[in-house]
């Protein structure tokens, strides 16, 4: 500041200061380490102790991995080859690979079917998960449930075809009547779909060998495939049901509101494992004696109910976080309830709810292993049952459970990473 300015109170700036870069600081790995690892005698000590522990764990575990045996046919043979050395017996994984993935009863010449279904799953998920994927792939997504059902369970193609035609017919009926009112349209759609399903059921029932794959009953499904089936089906069903429950809970119609509240509170108050026992044993009493409802279907219903109650609560949190002004703005523009919900409210509420929904989805996927308790042979069921109980592999704990941990971790970590990416994609409130 010049002298003239210092002497008088009045001050007029005649030049604006240009923007300057922040002070250049020393960068690089050395600086990072000094700041983060060795910033004081205590932190230096902690760093050294941590390094020592990491060193101990790695050197302790490494021989176990390095000496791993991949080709033996039993635990006894493994031990023989190792001759007293530390070493893993990974050969249980190679030898029982198919059992771990598909269970022990799925016909081995049909493994290509679940594998194809899995590959198609990735294709079908792409347009849903990535907005940039070609939109034409949505056709695959729409057809996927029916194709996957046919591939995994087999039987005539007519059955899923009838189901597909029923859904399509219901949609057409809904569109035709929708202009009268949403409820009328939904009712018409439901009736049309039911009529097609019942009529088509006779056709597909009488032509069981048309375009048929070898049928595989539900009790023959197993391994990680069963976890994937339950996880995928239940997550994709529980999200829309959860949305409906959350909206129902906010409804101004008391009966709908109370049905939703009671459902959510009841399901949340019960452990999943009891629901699974109900599915396994008790549910049979509620159906007519000759109605043989598939066990996998019963389990899917229970897990879906369980997850949708949780998702409903997560979404309710998202709805509550929206300012009232958003509802008012939508109303003042003349949008009706369905439009406001679909275009304004839900996109924002779901965005807020992503972390919570992913939390439930990951939890649900891991909870699918609980079906091993009701004697279904999912990945955990296979390890606990047929594999560990066999004379060859009795006692191979670390390798098998480590493998199960790895499979679940890969899936759950991917889901988590995807959700973080999605949150960044949807963030519109920054510069």
């Amino acid at each position, binding site marked *: 500041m010049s002298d003239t300015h210092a002497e008088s109170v009045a001050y007029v700036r005649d030049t604006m200061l240009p923007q300057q870069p922040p002070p250049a600081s020393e960068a690089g790995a050395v600086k990072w380490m000094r700041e983060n690892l060795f910033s004081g005698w205590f932190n230096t000590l902690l760093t050294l102790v941590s390094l020592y522990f990491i060193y101990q764990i790695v050197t302790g575990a490494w021989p176990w991995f390095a000496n791993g045996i991949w080709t033996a046919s039993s635990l006894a043979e493994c031990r023989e080859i190792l001759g007293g050395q530390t070493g893993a017996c990974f050969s249980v994984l190679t030898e029982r690979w198919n059992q771990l993935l598909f269970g022990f009863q799925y016909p081995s010449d049909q493994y290509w079917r679940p594998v194809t279904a899995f590959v198609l799953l990735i294709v079908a998920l792409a347009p849903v998960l990535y907005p940039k994927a070609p939109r034409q792939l949505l056709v695959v997504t729409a057809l996927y449930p029916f194709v996957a059902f046919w591939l995994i369970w087999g039987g005539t193609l007519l059955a899923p075809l009838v189901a597909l035609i029923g859904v399509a017919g219901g949609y057409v009926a809904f569109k035709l009547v929708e202009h009268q009112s949403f409820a009328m349209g939904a009712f018409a759609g439901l009736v049309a779909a039911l009529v097609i399903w019942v009529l088509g059921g006779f056709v597909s029932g009488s032509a069981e060998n048309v375009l048929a794959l070898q049928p595989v009953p539900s009790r023959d499904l197993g391994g990680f495939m069963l976890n994937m089936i339950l996880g995928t089906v239940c997550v994709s069903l529980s999200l829309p049901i959860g949305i409906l429950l959350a909206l129902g809970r906010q409804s101004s119609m008391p009966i709908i509101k109370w049905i939703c509240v009671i459902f959510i509170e009841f399901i949340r108050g019960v452990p999943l494992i009891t629901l699974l026992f109900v599915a396994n044993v008790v549910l049979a009493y509620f159906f007519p004696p000759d109605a043989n409802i598939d066990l996998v279907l019963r389990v899917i219903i229970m897990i879906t109910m369980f997850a949708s109650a949780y998702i409903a609560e997560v979404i309710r949190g998202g709805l509550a976080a929206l*300012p009232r*002004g*958003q509802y*008012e*703005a*939508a*109303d*003042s*523009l*003349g*949008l*009706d309830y369905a*439009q406001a919900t679909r*275009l*304004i409210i839900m*996109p*924002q509420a779901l*965005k807020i709810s992503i972390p919570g929904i992913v939390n439930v989805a990951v939890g649900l996927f891991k909870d699918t292993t609980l079906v091993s308790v009701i004697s279904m042979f999912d990945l955990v069921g296979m390890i606990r049952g047929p594999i560990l109980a066999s004379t060859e592999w009795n006692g191979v704990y670390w390798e098998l459970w480590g493998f199960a941990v790895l499979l679940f971790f890969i899936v759950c970590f991917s889901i988590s990473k995807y959700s973080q990416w999605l949150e960044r994609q*949807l963030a*519109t*409130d*920054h*510069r």
Partner: protein
Amino acid sequence: MAQPAQKPVSGEVAIQIENMNKWYGAFHVLRDIDLTVYRGERIVIAGPSGSGKSTLIRCINALEEHQKGSITVDGTLLSSDVKNIDKIRSEVGMVFQHFNLFPHLTILENCTLAPIWVRKIPKREAEETAMHFLEKVKIPEQADKYPGQLSGGQQQRVAIARSLCMRPRIMLFDEPTSALDPEMIKEVLDTMVELAEDGMTMLCVTHEMGFARQVAHRVIFMDAGQIVEQNEPEAFFNNPQNDRTKLFLSQILGH
């Protein structure tokens, strides 16, 4: 600025409110409101906070429900019939104090959403209309940004454009400048003045008395849920009659 017309522009009635009452629980918010708004008329509603100004104009597009009396908008009686409510809402535009833009949609999408879904206008046409009004509020270059990237004044102008895209016959303004920095108030008021010059029927709750003097045909002063005084702006500001009005004006214009 052109001298505003001091007489209602036409004899055609746009909004007819008769003996309207509203309660929040046991609290009597609006008492015996009678108000006739003519087409092309511009009304400024003033009054202390809690006097029911906002509630009054929110009743006109049924954001709030009234319990007694009648409101007729453009010949449609406002009842609990959802069809009537939606019809009125699509004819009446509203601008809020806190803008209430949709943060997950771009500026352009904010403006085209209602025309596409409510009016069933083809997307391309809706976008042309939207660009027309965004140019009118002087921010066409922001069309592809998100509301969070705009300043408060810009957001409020987008909110005005969004309402105009529905081609409303009546516009309601609920304290449109109260949440803005002083520097941004002017740009919003200029937009509103321009709108007034186009002959829009406007009901405006605001504390901007300069704006009231400049564009209003009529100023309404409310207190404790009642219309206390209404008059042409000149007479209202220079020669208030009611004691409550005098006190209010002395406080708001005193410094």
